[in-house]
């Protein structure tokens, strides 16, 4: 059988799965009773509600027509997330200046039109701007250089 409204269906499935996951985890916490709510009480209710809403979305979507899943382009998504991960890993060992410059260069690959000169120019410019405004002017406590 073909699912008619792909977007709503998968959206519902996602919410259902998240709701159930929270309920499963909430079982480890004491539920308590209404008059003395334990740490598991509210999350359990919310998880059930979310799972229910997920079903309400997914089930009608099987028969009701709607949007098909939008196409994904992995390039911008993966490049930018990689850039941020690299920044997170390098920030403390290498210091802000190097990590920021690398962040910009990596993220530049998200756009195929970006020329290498632009990418490097941006890295220098934006790093300098951020150091000037955020660190020197506004006093954010960022380590600028590698910890030796």
């Amino acid at each position: 059988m073909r699912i008619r409204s792909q977007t709503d269906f998968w959206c519902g499935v996602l919410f259902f799965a998240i709701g159930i996951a929270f309920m499963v985890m909430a079982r480890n916490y004491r539920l308590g009773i209404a008059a003395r709510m334990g740490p598991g009480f509210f999350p359990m209710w919310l998880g059930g509600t979310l799972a229910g809403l997920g079903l309400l979305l997914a089930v009608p979507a099987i028969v009701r027509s709607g949007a098909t899943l939008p196409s994904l382009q992995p390039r911008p998504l993966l490049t930018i997330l990689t850039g941020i991960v690299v920044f997170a890993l390098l920030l403390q060992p290498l210091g802000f200046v190097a990590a920021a410059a690398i962040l910009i260069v990596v993220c530049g690959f998200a756009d195929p039109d970006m020329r290498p000169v632009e990418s490097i120019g941006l890295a220098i410019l934006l790093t300098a701007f951020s150091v000037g405004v955020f660190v020197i002017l506004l006093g954010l406590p960022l380590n600028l250089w590698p910890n030796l």
Partner: protein
Amino acid sequence: MDILSNLALGFGVAISLQNLIYCFVGVFLGTLIGVLPGIGPVATVAMLLPLTFNLSPATAMIMLAGIYYGAQYGGSTTAILVNIPGESSSVVTTIDGHRMAKQGRAGPALGMAAIASFVAGSLATLVVALFSPPLAEIALKFGPADYFSLMVFGLVGAVVLARGSLRKAIAMVVLGLLLGMVGTDLNSGQQRFTFGIPALAEGISFAALAMGMFGVAEVIYNLEQRAAVRQVNVPSIGRILPTLAELWQCMWSIMRGTGIGAVLGILPGGGALLASFAAYTVEKKVARAPKDFGNGDIRGVAAPEAANNAGAQTSFIPMLTLGVPSNPTMALMIGALMIQGIQPGPQAMLQRPELFWGIVASMWIGNLFLLLLNLPLVGLWVRLLAVPYRLLFPAILMFCCIGVYSINNNPFDLFQLVVFSALGYMLLKLGCEPAPLILGLVLGPMMEEYLRRALLISLGDPTVLVTSPLSAFFLIAALGLLVSIAVPAIRNQREVAMKE
């Protein structure tokens, strides 16, 4: 008179050289980042939040208010010049504003937007000053059940105003509430949903979530829609100051817009979006030549700009008096106050008058700076917009990363940013709007706590939620909102409204 002495106290707090400088820097940076296409006030406030951590509470709020107004005005600039609204509240401005820009009248449109914002902001600040203290007095009488139901009402408001499917919006609220459960349970000390990660003991980083969903996810989405953002033609500006005739023409539009915005801004979930849309619709109804609307009528810029700025001011009222945010930006403001060790609400407001009145005074100062800064600097913003998107998006990413990291100086928060960017992108693709989720995240722990207290007092009897008159009123109002949206006629109107 009481209010005069209070305002004097407020201006005494706000007008110090240091505060004026921070307010100015806030307005400038807010506008600068708000002008970047696709970046609205929420992402801007989240990015710049860490800048306020070392400041005293009053100065921090003054700077944040400046950032907020600046970001909103920056969004309008982008809307008018290149037809890319940064946030839903400037969608309406694109209708006539961008048409004016195409006709070579971008200057007067931008000038009128600044003037309308200033007039509306000044008047709405007075509204805040007049109505907050009595409201706070009332709020002191709220019991836990009343608070719980008020929050339900607020969340339903946010759901009703979200674009797209109602069921998705409700699910996003619930997901937000669930994410709010992550961290240490205040009552039992139990670590919930932390997977043993110490950094999660204090809960999900609010700023990381806001920036991931409103900033990074948006950038990724824009990079995919290649043609849409690439071809940006910035029109010429011409004179900026509107003529006296135009000012005269717009005077009543600004007044009506201010009134509508001030009222709707107070409503939970409403804020600037509903205000600007309603103001535009009203102008169209009362105007003598309504067919000009949509073809570059300057009243179509003045009214919604006045309304969204008035709404932006009055949305501070529920935040300051009740501690309940009416929109995601206010949720961030609450986050900022809590980092300063202040739990917003009636107690804080009545016990620390200097903070409250300082904020009120700085609202007006922020609006003044907005006007003074933007009339001369419009040219600079225009040139910034002429820069292709591929040279702008790395700046957005860098500011997001700095913002997220600086809150705790913990690289783990950056991994949270990655996770929420991916989640936000996925939800964006599935047609779910992030605003309800963010409100849920902030309100989650508070709602749990109030529900716990309400049920404790009633010995577990849930009817306490309907036997307390205030609580019953809020719940009925929430139900009314939900029902009204299920009625086909109104639903259609909402859909038309959201499409425009």
